[in-house]
């Protein structure tokens, strides 16, 4: 078992990791920038080390400063949280090179899955369906034309070195394609120092469905799926489990495919395998793997009763997987919404400020993961996530009723937040019927954003 853990992150996820470590009797060390001296993760950890100025690249992304803090405080392990260095292969390697345990996969596993083309090939080799397109990089425009027979239009031309929605072009016909392909190669070279391209068919009305896996390097299990179709600019805002769109048969195939891929790459730790699901064709396609704990992991914890962060820490401490697949079952339905410091009525403009009165929702089936406290000044230097409100009910309908109740209880005075968005979404007939896809929210916002009224006290 791990003895002393450095938490290389901030905000709600740092608090979440500290809580899991405490439950396992592991001592914790927080790190903080100048902007986070008063942060909750600093208050809750056993020790805290200052690592630099507010700019992330001079603090939370400074591998040298973080490793020095771990060594100086006698830590034996480092948890990266999500974001910052969580999927940085060099960081995983550097932690290991210092003789410390990285709570997550090896640098090699992060590199493999971080390379979109290699990840796609690994999935294909493991028998996981991938979106129709090129099997690897496309060497020439002649080869690209041949692939179009498989994909048809519209088709995406993607930079092999891209990610997070960057380096993508869509062609709707051959003329657009002939023009876009060389331009995409030149742009990829300029932006990423690598002109490599690959191609994928555009799946029209798709849902975003992802499978949570846990691996110990030898074996792997799944903790079922989450649906995250409500997205804005490719950012998830509402996540739930299980997905209402899947039949039991498709769910079984989907989850089994994720386990095959995790085993094939010898995955260690908590990971998420992301898919697009096409309702009309009743088919799913691998898109990418996230080699870290994700923001939306609590919805899986609520329906399975598994503490995923604690399992990560146990695995990192050298224990083999404790959970067998037959022990993991789904109970009820859970929904998570992301409460961000943004004004949803004004194009989600960020709204950092100082928390006045704070009323945290509670009662049966409600969980609130956050770093807020009354008087906390939210810094402008980091992302806008203030809190995750997670609800659980016997059915999806009951979970939505609980979500509405919990949102009504929640009060964060002094800030504008995305709370009014979720109150409106919970009342929307399409959301209530789970009849949504990945582009649904943006068109809904075009019609409804102006009607979202902030709480009177903000």
């Amino acid at each position: 078992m791990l003895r002393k853990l450095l938490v290389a992150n901030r905000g709600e996820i740092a608090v979440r990791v500290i809580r899991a470590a405490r439950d396992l009797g592991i001592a914790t060390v927080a790190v903080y920038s100048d902007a986070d001296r008063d942060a909750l993760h600093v208050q809750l950890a056993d020790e805290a080390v200052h690592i630099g100025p507010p700019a992330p690249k001079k603090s939370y992304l400074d591998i040298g400063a973080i490793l020095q803090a771990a060594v100086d405080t006698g830590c034996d392990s480092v948890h990266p949280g999500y974001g910052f260095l969580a999927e940085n292969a060099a960081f995983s390697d550097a932690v290991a090179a210092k003789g410390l345990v990285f709570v997550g996969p090896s640098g090699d596993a992060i590199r493999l899955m971080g390379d979109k083309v290699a990840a796609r090939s690994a999935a294909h080799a493991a028998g996981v369906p991938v979106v129709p397109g090129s099997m690897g990089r496309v060497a020439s425009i002649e080869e690209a034309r041949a692939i179009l027979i498989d994909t048809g239009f519209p088709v995406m031309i993607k930079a092999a070195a891209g990610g997070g929605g960057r380096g993508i072009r869509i062609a709707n016909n051959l003329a657009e394609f002939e023009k876009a392909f060389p331009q995409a190669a030149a742009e990829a070279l300029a932006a990423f120092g690598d002109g490599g391209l690959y191609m994928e068919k555009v799946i029209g009305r798709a849902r975003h469905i992802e499978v949570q896996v846990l691996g110990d390097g030898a074996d792997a299990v799944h903790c079922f799926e989450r649906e995250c179709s409500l997205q804005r600019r490719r950012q998830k805002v509402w996540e739930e489990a299980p997905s209402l769109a899947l039949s039991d048969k498709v769910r079984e195939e989907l989850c089994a495919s994720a386990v095959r891929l995790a085993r094939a790459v010898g995955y260690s730790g908590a990971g998420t395998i992301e898919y697009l699901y096409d309702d009309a064709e009743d088919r799913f396609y691998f898109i990418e793997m996230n080699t870290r704990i994700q923001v939306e992991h609590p919805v899986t914890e609520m329906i399975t009763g598994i503490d995923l962060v604690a399992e990560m820490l146990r695995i990192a401490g050298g224990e083999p997987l404790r959970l067998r697949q037959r022990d993991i079952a789904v109970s009820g339905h859970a929904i998570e919404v992301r409460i961000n410091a943004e004004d949803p009525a004004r194009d989600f403009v960020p709204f950092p400020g100082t928390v006045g009165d704070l009323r945290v929702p509670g009662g049966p089936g409600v969980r609130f993961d956050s770093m807020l406290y009354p008087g906390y000044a939210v810094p402008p230097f980091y992302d806008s996530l203030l809190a995750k409100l997670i609800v659980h009910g016997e059915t999806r309908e009951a979970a939505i009723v609980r979500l509405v109740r919990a949102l009504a209880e929640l009060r964060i005075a002094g800030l504008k937040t995305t709370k009014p968005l979720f109150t409106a979404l919970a009342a929307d007939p399409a959301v209530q019927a789970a009849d949504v896809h990945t582009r649904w929210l943006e068109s809904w916002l075009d019609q409804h954003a102006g009607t979202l009224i902030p709480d009177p006290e903000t």
Partner: protein
Amino acid sequence: MAQILSHLPGTFYRSPAPDQPPYKADGDSVAAGDVIGLIEVMKSFHEVKAEVAGTNIRFVADNEEPVMAGAVLAEID
């Protein structure tokens, strides 16, 4: 003399990207509506525009400097 203020708290950038020249150099003239910098707040970028025209812009805030809402970024004559 007029001041150009930041409407948001965050990090001030004088150029559109690290490898590109600044929007304005000290001493440049500005027209109303010209972009003079970016404020990064919570991982999103917002343009700072001059509200009035002027000559001889002088930057008060440094590139990549943390600023509060209402901070003076530059002065123009």
